């Protein structure tokens, strides 16, 4: 059944290439996958989901999918939710529908394959499959300086993938198998410490580049800023989580001692994500750049959860914390990118200083964006809060007052400032866009009546109906909001899956 989930988007991609109506197919397949994904979450223990097809005898490789634990289920769930929202909220440029919707499906299929694969080879391969359309879409349909951004992300992620591949091949060689389930059964102390340290370094840099770990993050913000909406939603929301998922799935169980050797550098780098990139985010002048950087910044928290797991392997909170936050961030950043695209279409700009007062003409848009912004800050009641609070608790797990603060706790205290930083840039962006005077339509109070009747440019919308979300546009946003609220109010929805 999981094979169906993975191959349906890929088959739909081929069908779209051959001329089936693009948007309709994409929406249909994504909706079907959502149903399939949600039902998988309910029944994932059933062996009926697994699938295995021998591909190679020497070395033994299988095209195999399955749910080894709840972590895969949650990632698959995240993928199907964001995919449906992405194909529903994007508007393809005229004549490029095939490319636009086909690539979105390809990214989704690749991500699903990577999260559901139980064979190391296909785990890696499906992720790469998803990257190629990402590069092409940014280069072809992106905004602004799209070619430079696309080339940068291609080079960075290409290099990151190769470093990662080196680590994975080494790991497979030492464990003697490509089956990730069997791999984890290998007693970790049989891998000698020097090799563990080397593999851990390769995996941290490889996966880290894919997740935009500081200082390998500089591809992310320009790429997201110029990516078409569904690509930004799918990559920032879903595909980027592959690196974190890989660290949790492979690095933590297999090379724990190796990772411990790199704990301090990791803590310093993740503070780079939270604080350095946080300040960079505050200084952004455009909404897309701000969202791109904020997505890099929030990766720092998830790395903090991973660091807590490395430092205290028995920590029961750290893994759920990382996963809940991955889910929450994926949904909230997808919502933000989707709405930012919508804002650009209604105002013709994403420059924060060019906007203002949009809440008057577009109250629904303002409300939904507000929820997404609050989620990103970590307001209680929304999913991100559940994730972030778990991360901070995990960092202080087994804290002993007499022994003083350990490195993880110190990093956690610094990271807490990240919440303040997010509040600063998110609230400022919200105020600039939705509150205050309608800057675009009015240069001064005297011109107000005049300009309401005479639009100043083709991009300026003055009528309320055109600016606010239509019902069709609300559906994807409401879907994502629903996920945020549901997990925020009742995090056990996800935590029960992890038991």
């Amino acid at each position, binding site marked *: 059944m999981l094979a169906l989930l993975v191959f349906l988007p890929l088959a739909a991609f081929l069908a779209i290439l051959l001329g089936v109506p693009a948007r309709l197919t994409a929406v249909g397949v994504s909706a079907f996958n959502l149903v399939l994904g949600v039902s998988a979450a309910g029944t994932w223990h059933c062996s009926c989901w697994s699938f295995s097809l021998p591909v190679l005898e020497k070395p*033994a490789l299988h095209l195999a999918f399955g749910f080894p634990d709840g972590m895969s289920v949650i990632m698959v769930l995240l993928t199907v939710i964001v995919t449906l929202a992405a194909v529903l909220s994007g508007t393809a440029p005229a004549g490029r529908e095939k490319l636009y919707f086909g690539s979105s499906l390809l990214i989704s299929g690749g991500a699903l394959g990577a999260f559901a694969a139980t064979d190391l080879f296909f785990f890696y391969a499906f992720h790469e499959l998803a990257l190629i359309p990402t590069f092409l879409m940014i280069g072809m349909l992106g905004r602004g300086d799209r070619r430079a951004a696309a080339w940068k992300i291609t080079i960075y992620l290409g290099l990151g993938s190769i470093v990662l591949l080196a680590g994975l091949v080494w790991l497979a060689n030492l464990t003697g198998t490509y089956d990730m389930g069997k791999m984890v059964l290998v007693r970790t102390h049989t891998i000698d410490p020097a090799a563990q340290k080397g593999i851990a370094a390769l995996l941290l840099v490889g996966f880290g580049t894919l997740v935009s770990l500081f200082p390998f993050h500089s591809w992310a913000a320009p790429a997201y800023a110029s990516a078409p909406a569904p690509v930004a939603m799918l990559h920032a929301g879903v595909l980027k989580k592959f690196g974190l998922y890989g660290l949790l799935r492979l690095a933590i169980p297999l090379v724990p001692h190796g990772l411990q050797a790199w704990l301090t550098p990791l803590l310093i780098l993740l503070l780079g994500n939270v604080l350095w990139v946080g300040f960079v985010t505050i200084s952004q002048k455009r909404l897309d750049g701000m969202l791109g950087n904020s997505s890099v910044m929030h990766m720092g928290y998830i790395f903090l959860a991973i660091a807590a797991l490395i430092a205290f392997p028995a920590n029961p909170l750290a893994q759920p914390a990382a996963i809940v936050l991955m889910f929450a961030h994926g949904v909230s950043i997808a919502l933000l990118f989707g709405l930012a695209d919508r804002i650009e279409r209604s105002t013709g700009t994403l420059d924060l200083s060019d906007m203002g007062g949009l809440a008057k003409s577009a109250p629904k848009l303002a409300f939904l964006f507000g929820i997404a912004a609050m989620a990103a800050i970590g307001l209680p009641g929304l999913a991100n809060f559940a994730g972030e609070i778990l991360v901070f608790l995990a960092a202080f797990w087994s804290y002993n007052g007499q022994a003083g603060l350990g490195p993880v706790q110190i990093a956690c205290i610094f990271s807490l400032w990240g919440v303040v930083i997010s509040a600063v840039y998110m609230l400022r962006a919200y105020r600039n866009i939705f509150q205050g005077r309608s800057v675009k339509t009015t240069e001064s109070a005297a011109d107000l009546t005049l300009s309401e009747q005479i639009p100043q440019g083709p991009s300026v919308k003055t009528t309320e109906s055109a600016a606010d979300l239509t019902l069709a546009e609300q559906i994807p946003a409401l879907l994502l909001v629903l996920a945020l609220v549901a997990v925020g109010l009742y995090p056990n929805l996800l935590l029960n899956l992890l038991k």
Partner: protein
Amino acid sequence: MPAYYLEALTITLGLILLLAEAFVPAKSKAWVGVAAALGLAVILGLTGIAIGPAAKPAAAWAQWPLWNFYQFDALARFYKIFALVCTLLVVLMSVDYRKILARFTDHTESEDGTGEYYALPVFACAGMMFLASAKDLAGAFVALELVTITFYILVAYMRRNVGSLEAGVKYLILGALSTGFLVYGIAWVYGTTGTMSLPEISNLKLQTTNPTPLLFGVALVMVGLGFKIGAVPMQIWIPDVYQGAPTPTTAFLSVGSKAAGFILMIRFLEPFIFNEITRSPVLNLLLILSVATLLFGNLAAIPQTNFKRLLAYSSIAHAGFLLLALACGKNESADSLGSAQVVSFYLATYLIMTLGVFFVLAQVRIQRDGEAITDFNGLGKTNPLLALALTVLLAALAGVPLTAGFLGKFFVFALAVDAHLWMGVGIAFIAAAAGFYYYLNVVRAMWWAAPGDLPPVTLPIISKACVAVLSVATLVLGIWPQPILALLK
């Protein structure tokens, strides 16, 4: 059917084509190519029923002394099929390339001088097929020269084109030099072992306290073969010759000639790799060659602006990966492939990807009158499907997962990690990263650059079919490599 019939039939086919070509009117010379392709396809079918003496020891032919020079095992069958498929595709490519051939041969307007161009690759093919079965250094040398001499003509075929002539002269001089090294090396090996037969060499107990003269001979042979496969430091001819030669010849050189060099290398080195005294120096030499080749090929490919020249450097780069697999010196075992299988698999995927790219390149050369990367600008807009196919092929060359090219590289990496060749693995990863950059550079030109006033490319029917088959095969073999691996069993 005894296996040597295959070579005999191929030679006969070549001779018939050459004779018939003299009587075919100028405007229908392309039919010579079609006939060559058909003939090769028939011989390709016959490889399925070819057998060696072990299968039928009682037959009269199985007693012939020929079998002292000639063997037929799975590897031999594989490389015979390889040579036939490669030649078949090159001949088909030549048929679609005849307009350019005609322009630079006898009469610029007529196809009068193009006929032999379809017959010559058939002879080279026979040479490659014999090499696959070579068991004796003298026989191997003769077969290799048949290949090389045919290539002298093929490279310089466009005699009214300065580039082609220059390439021909360079190839001739350096080829002759490498032949010298090869013969000299064979002489040393013969001098120290007293035999030319490879099985006899491996049976000899090399108990000499001083293996230096033998190793000197081996090293000389490897220099000679390094020329064929494009290994540093014998790679200097490659960029200029590849760029100047007619595109189908370039394709043939980069796939066929390289594979011929590798099969001979596998056969020749086997006795020395699996001998305790010579194993470590030979493997070290291979590793050094491999690292140098990987570094040179990949780093020098980065600044290239001419696509054909880029493919020349890429061909050097791939030779580096292949040498790394050989440097592991591993026999097939229960849970992993041996060096020879990995090299063969890699070459098979390389054939598919490279020839696919050359088919497109040949047509772009004809219709857009250029071979620079900028001549591929905007192909994604003018020919989306063609651009998609070329993207798949280039991604495979770069080693993107789920394509055949990735599996090849993956096997090499797995083998090298297993053999603990850490330096080789490290350099190979750097090389693969560089490859990512320069292949995707072309993809970038196709999809992100505007076509300007470049016309759309219309593929002739043969090229269209071949590109479609090869790019689909690249994807299928990336997920399901069994068909090739089954041939290697």
